[in-house]
């Protein structure tokens, strides 16, 4: 523990903690809605798209990859949402198609046109997050804080509407709520969170940050508000523990956070057997 506190003196460590906790928190807030709306597959598909976009960005040698990756992922989120609601095209098949294509083409692009000397390392860190502590510039940290705050504020402002649209979309529509608009909002926010989270845990593991807190909270609590609040607490705790362990033990950040999430989930499962409130 003392070792950990001495690490806190380094700005890099503080940045990593701030960013990690904020991203986990944002992912968990939307997670409840995603899991309940059976939207979690969208998150999964999108993370592959983000990988493809990342590959394009690195092939183009962009200095700030975010400016390409973010819009591209948002556009795909909207597309996936639309095709998913079009009864004629099988939504999940369409998503599987888009996501596998993005994964394959992304790797192909990096392999053929890539200039980097350490291709395997690059691919691996895009998929699974950086192997050691993430090195972030102050500007990146600021961007992450700004986006996270926006996500949190939007979530709080639209909390009641999101609940209604999630619980019973037809009723919400019938009473004049623009449910299509909120679905769009949800899709855009997920896309943003996924792109942010990619730096932290990599594109394959980001879904874990979305689903584990929600599923764990649902083991224990039975009202929407409590589930939401608990999953936020769960996410922050696991992110903190995961990052702390990864710093002390030198393990990869992303998988350590996810491991903490898995452990937390198992604990909640156990607790759910004995206590239900």
């Amino acid at each position, binding site marked *: 523990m003392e070792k950990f506190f001495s690490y806190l003196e380094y700005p890099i460590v503080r940045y990593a903690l701030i960013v990690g906790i904020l991203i986990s928190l944002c992912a968990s807030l939307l997670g409840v809605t995603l899991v309940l709306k059976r939207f979690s597959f969208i998150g999964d598909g999108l993370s592959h798209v983000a990988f493809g976009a990342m590959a394009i960005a690195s092939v183009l040698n962009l200095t700030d990859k975010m400016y390409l990756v973010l819009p591209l992922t948002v556009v795909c989120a909207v597309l996936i949402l639309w095709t998913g609601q079009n009864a004629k095209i099988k939504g999940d098949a369409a998503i599987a198609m888009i996501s596998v294509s993005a994964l394959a083409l992304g790797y192909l692009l990096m392999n053929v046109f890539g200039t980097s000397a350490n291709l395997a390392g690059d691919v691996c860190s895009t998929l699974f997050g950086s192997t050691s502590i993430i090195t972030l510039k102050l500007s990146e940290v600021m961007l992450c804080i700004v986006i996270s705050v926006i996500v949190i504020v939007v979530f*709080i402002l639209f909390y*009641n509407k999101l*609940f*209604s649209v999630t619980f019973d979309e037809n*009723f919400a529509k019938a*009473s004049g709520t623009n449910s299509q608009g909120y679905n769009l909002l949800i899709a855009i926010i997920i896309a943003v969170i996924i792109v942010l989270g990619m730096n932290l845990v990599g594109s394959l593991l980001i879904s874990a940050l979305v689903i584990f807190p929600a599923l764990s909270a649902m083991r224990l609590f*039975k*009202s*929407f508000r409590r589930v939401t609040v608990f999953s936020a607490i769960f996410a922050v705790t696991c992110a903190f523990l995961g990052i702390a362990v990864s710093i002390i033990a030198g393990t990869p950040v992303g998988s350590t956070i996810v491991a903490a999430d898995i452990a937390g989930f198992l604990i909640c499962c156990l607790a759910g057997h004995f206590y239900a409130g």
Partner: protein
Amino acid sequence: MSYIEAKNLSVGYDGEVVGKDISFTVNKGDYLCIIGDNGSGKTTLMKTILGLKKPLSGEIIMGDGLKKNEIGYLPQQTVIQKDFPASVKEIVLSGCLSKCGMRPFYKKEEKALALENMKRMGIEALQDKCYRELSGGQQQRVLLARALCATEKLLLLDEPVSGLDPNVTAEMYKLIEQLNKDGVTIIMISHDIESAVKYASHILHIGENIFFAEKAQYVEKMNINLN
């Protein structure tokens, strides 16, 4: 001017007509029962009235000061996921959403309204319970309370008593009758012709032959058919 006037309405999915030439009017204070066989298009008609889907042809005119977001709705089957965590209070309160507009949070009056409607439906004691752990009859009351939060003008109920035992069914009919007496206009889908005839003021029969009339006329016609 009536609340709802449907003229030569055709309803269906993707151009496939389920019911056509449906005309009827609903005035303030009416209690309309829609009856018809399974698959005759009752739910489809109701969704069209709600604006959840467009009519294939014909038109629905709303009047008498009824706004689109002043309709309360009780779905036939709420496909609520088995594991959805939501308390009774949260669900009933969500009926007030149409009153919020762009305002993010509920006002005191809206919370009070939710409480009042829970009392009216006799589910006050259940307000912190989890919806999915309630019995079918209790769940219907919760959804009815939610619909009441959305409006005091017009309720659309899609088979509100399906799956309920005879006692609870009778209670449910009493509740709906009381609401109607309090001035709430009711449009209800039902398979139970006996109760439809007992409580409704108008009957709309859809299917092969479409028939819309006041109850007395309907009874008369059915008797003629029976003889």
